């Protein structure tokens, strides 16, 4: 069993949290992630900042720009992953990125560095099923899973194709839109999640995008094996009125509040 399979076989909803690496700097982003783990996060998505985050809303856009302005380099994401792996042997670690930084480094080198850093999976927003072939074999050769994404626009037969052989979890994008907090989730959520779980079985399904409160967390968790919270964490990372210690405490509190609501 890989780390994902162990985490999803614990018999409770899996808590997945996203934070932007290097926002506002490397050290404070690591401290922030410690707070998320203390609050009950099972899998951490380490956001690798990219200059043109076309699938992200304003919050993650701002965090990426800030990290890049403050000197973020892709190499630092591996450093962050290593630090977390050392501290938490059971924690799931996913690098969440756009393709160009990976392509620029070379898929093989990326996979090698990710393996050395103790990373379990990679989620590459702009590599759909059709383009997977140029990165997935390199990742798998290093024991790293490529986390597949499914959206409300994905038809059932395509869901099957995308999720076949998935060794991690399937990431269901709950909304037609970019990342960001929303007050409510779409009406078709439960119906779509049910269809996806049938198509993806035995792979577990986590729902993300738009989840930021106990209410939205419960709504998403009702039909999924896990939930992802992203922009709500990143908003705290971006709050200039807070010290690094205060941000860490808030991250822990948010994780407890939202993830606690589905346990």
């Amino acid at each position, binding site marked *: 069993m890989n780390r994902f399979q162990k985490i999803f076989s614990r018999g409770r909803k899996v808590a997945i949290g996203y934070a932007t690496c290097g926002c506002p700097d490397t050290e404070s982003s690591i401290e922030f992630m410690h707070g998320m783990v203390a609050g009950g996060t099972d899998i951490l998505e380490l956001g690798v900042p990219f200059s043109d985050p*076309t699938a992200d809303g304003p919050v993650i856009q701002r965090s990426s720009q800030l990290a890049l302005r403050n000197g973020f380099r892709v190499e630092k994401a591996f450093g962050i992953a290593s630090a977390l792996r050392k501290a938490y042997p059971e924690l799931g670690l996913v690098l969440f990125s756009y393709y160009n930084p990976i392509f*620029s480094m070379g898929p093989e080198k990326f996979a090698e560095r990710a393996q050395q850093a103790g990373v379990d999976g990679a989620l590459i927003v702009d590599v759909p099923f*059709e383009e997977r072939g140029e990165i997935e074999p390199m990742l798998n050769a290093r024991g790293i899973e490529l986390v597949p994404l499914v*959206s409300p626009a994905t038809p059932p037969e395509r869901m099957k194709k995308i999720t076949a052989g998935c060794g991690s979890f399937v990431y269901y994008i709950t909304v*037609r839109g*970019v990342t960001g907090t929303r007050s409510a989730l779409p009406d078709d959520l439960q119906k779509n999640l049910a269809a996806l779980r049938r198509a993806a079985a035995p792979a577990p399904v986590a729902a993300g995008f738009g989840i930021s409160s106990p209410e939205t967390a419960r709504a998403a968790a009702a039909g999924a094996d896990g939930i992802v919270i992203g922009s709500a964490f990143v908003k705290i990372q971006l709050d200039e009125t807070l010290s690094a210690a205060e941000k860490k405490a808030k991250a822990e509190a948010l994780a407890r509040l939202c993830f606690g609501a589905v346990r």
Partner: protein
Amino acid sequence: MKNTHYDIYGGQYVAETLMPALEELTRAYEKFRNDPDFVAEMKYFLHDYVGRESPLYFAERLTAHCGGAQIYLKREDLNHTGAHKSNNTLGQALLARRMGKKRLIAETGAGMHGVATATVAARFGFECEVFMGEADIRRQQPNVERMAMLGAKVRSITSGTGTLKDAMNEALRNWVETVEDTFYVIGTVAGPAPYPEMVKDFQSVIGREARAQFLERTGKLPDEVIACVGGGSNAMGIFAGFENDPGVKLVGVEAGGMGLETGHHAASINGGRVGVLHGSKSYLLQDADGQVLDAYSVSAGLDYPGVGPEHAFLHDTGRAEYTAINDDEAIAAFDLLCRLEGILPALESSHAIAQAIKNAPRLGKDKAIVVCLSGRGDKDMENIRAYKAGKKILNCE
């Protein structure tokens, strides 16, 4: 789908949410591209509405001035809306109508594609929203006003440097949210498949006409065909007419900005390396870490860090040559064409003119060059005046 990839270039590097939309578009395009009704409708509107065919004009005084090869201008500036852009927006609008879409969105740099999209939206009754960087809105005010008059909403984009790349990021984000009823009208031969091939198809009328016109007039083919390249749609359009004529040299002209050596340019092929942006793999201006760099050119329409994937392919195979012309050279060519021929070219097209001015003296008087004069320069007057007055260029502060 014939071409999702051009060797290693092209592809569909987009979020999963857009994949079903691209499949839907591909199916519709394959269904209608050779449909007699669609073809007839295109032909009718290209003739009666866009004003085709556009003339192939012998630039006699420019030729005499350069003292070498004869220079011919393919007058895309005379099209409705003043550039080659309407060839493509017309095609995409007719396709969108058949697909039952209600709303068109577009990105724009110089504003010419935005105006061309707003124009067909008005003509065919679509809602229309155009995404434009705030620096470009300042540089290209007349086009912003034209779009508003045509009933389009212009959304100012403040992220990044507020230029074409950022406008395209925002258009893609909007499309993800509105994909059910919205057709994304991409203005160049970039983006995910099927856009590069589809836009080439719609623009290939330029090359078909130019080849036939030149042949009819001279009984032979030109020696060189020159066009400016930002994303590269006018170049791909005119190249398409000559791609199977190995004796015709194809020359794409990138924006050298302040000079390739300064780093302030928009020459993706000459000054970038292979990367992935906005749905396709091609040459890209980027740093060592794969972060995309901001392009710079005095011409807003060339100010883009990427280039269409087929251009990358034509470069690698050697079928086309890609050069760079800097700001000063483009402005000088602009002046020369105004004074000698009474034609006010777009700053984008002025890059191609500048290359022709360089190449003509190297060729004999019995040789001929066809330049794609992709658009008119009325929109650039304020920017050129400011440039000549030595003011800071707006997006290079």
